[in-house]
């Protein structure tokens, strides 16, 4: 999936809360490997912060931990450019106002980037202070590789 214009990759989560770090771990894997038209960011996940991070981008990829009942480490991928995320997938947010709301708020305001992809990494443990589980580490590598393959190495 080639992209022209600015691409923003946003890793969402809390690095101090177990598997909630998944999105940020993906962002860290990609940082430094990307072309100049790609901005890699980490966000705590509050919706208005995400909205600001996506502003003006032609493509956005958001990565967050989620809880749907699937096995930990399962990777979900949604093209939300036209349709919302399925409600069965709940990005894990302690703020109750996170990725899903940011995408829909951007859409309602006519500010959603024309291409917007959300990756959800199924988490198993969100305990405060816990390290991410090994299942997450494997999924993080795969998501980073997929984003790199889909977007990043296409060049500006």
């Amino acid at each position, binding site marked *: 999936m080639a992209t022209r214009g600015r691409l923003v990759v946003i890793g969402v989560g*809390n690095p101090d809360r177990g598997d909630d770090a998944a999105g940020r771990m993906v962002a860290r894997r990609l940082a430094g490997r990307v072309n100049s038209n790609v901005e890699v960011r980490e966000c705590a996940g*509050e919706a*208005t*912060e995400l909205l600001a991070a996506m502003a003006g981008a032609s493509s956005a990829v958001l990565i967050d931990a989620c809880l749907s009942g699937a096995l930990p480490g399962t990777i979900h991928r949604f093209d939300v450019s036209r349709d919302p995320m399925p409600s069965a997938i709940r990005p894990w947010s302690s703020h*109750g*106002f996170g990725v899903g*709301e940011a995408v829909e*708020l951007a859409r*309602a305001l006519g500010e959603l980037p024309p291409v917007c992809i959300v990756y959800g990494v199924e988490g198993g443990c969100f305990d405060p202070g816990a390290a991410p589980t090994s299942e997450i580490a494997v999924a993080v590598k795969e998501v980073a590789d997929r984003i790199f393959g889909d977007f990043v190495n296409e060049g500006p």
Partner: protein
Amino acid sequence: MATRTIKVDYLARVEGEASLKLVVRDGRVDQAQLSIFEPPRFFEAMLRDRDFTEAPDITARICGICPVAYQMSSVHAMENALGVTVDGPLRALRRLLYCGEWIESHTLHVYMLHAPDFLGYEGSVEMARDHGDLVRRGLDLKKAGNEIVALLGGREIHPINVRVGGFYRVPTKRDLAPLAERLKRAREAALATVQWTAGFDFPDRERDYTFVSVSHPDEYPFNEGRIVSNRGLDIATADYDSHFVESHEQHSTALYAQMRDGGSYLLGPLARYALNHDRLRPLAREAARDAGLGPVCRNPYRSIVVRAVEVLQACDEAIALIEAYEEPDHPAVAITPRAGIGFGATEAPRGMLFHRYRLDDDGSIAEARIIPPTSQNQASIEEDLANYAEGFLDLPDEALRHRCEQTVRNYDPCISCATHFLRLEVDRG
């Protein structure tokens, strides 16, 4: 016996994880419980044996919405323990940083979390479809607050530039100048926000609350002052424990706080406003008057208007602080570690945040206590539910559930903050 139970398993549009339960028997509210089930996080234990210098950065991690409040209460408590006073431009910069947090936190709540209740929307997304320009105004106003925190704090979330004694780096006048221009636009938006929220339709509910806040003779309270109430309380921060007590209730992971003489109390915008109304800046005071707020507001549903007034206050004060700013000679006051006990109480957006630390000779933390505003407000939230829900019982379940949620959202509860400690008792028979 007719029993009706209203349960909300996941409260939406609040910060953190909580549920509420209302049990009605024969037309009377029998039970109203706010259950906070976010896991406790043991920050107080985590702080033990760490150096006093680490407290602002560690405690800022307690909350992504109000990290400045944690930093401010911790630095004031540490400076109190170490016999240090921070004044002049450094004190002004702290107030400016706090203005940024109030603007971003209050605006998020007013526009994204609370306004949909009054305008009949499920949430801000649905509201944005019909009122895009309003939501954009809210986002722009919030961003002005973010920009203050980013400039003074080093970054927008979990700022890293605050230290005991001052800052690691202070801005130049030139750094701050563009921010003042930005804030003038924000001030216009804040005034419009007061006018907008004042026009909402509010349930006619009032209670005779015990209001508690920090109070300063010359300023609307942020960082400094005595702890006062509308019932005659007027104490130094160090005397907090003589007048307030925490206890654990089984249904919540957050501790409850009460006055030692019994009874709940209310912190936050309504309390600050009632106790410090005459110290609002003229622009905010006039806007409050024009919005129909008297000097005291006891209707918690109107807290959205008071929050908007406080955003206006923060924008106006931030501009004044920037205009009067003179760069300090040093970014921080020099500090020599020593043993001591220190207390700090500052006004987080949701209300008074109390910190107490005991330090050893080398400045390491021997004991830490943090009492966030949401845990102090829990009892009052439940009393509001019990008192006000009775007037809404003729509503069908869905509408009653919505009223209950709205009643909780009046407090802008920050539940992640509230779950700071849990005494765990294991009954093994």
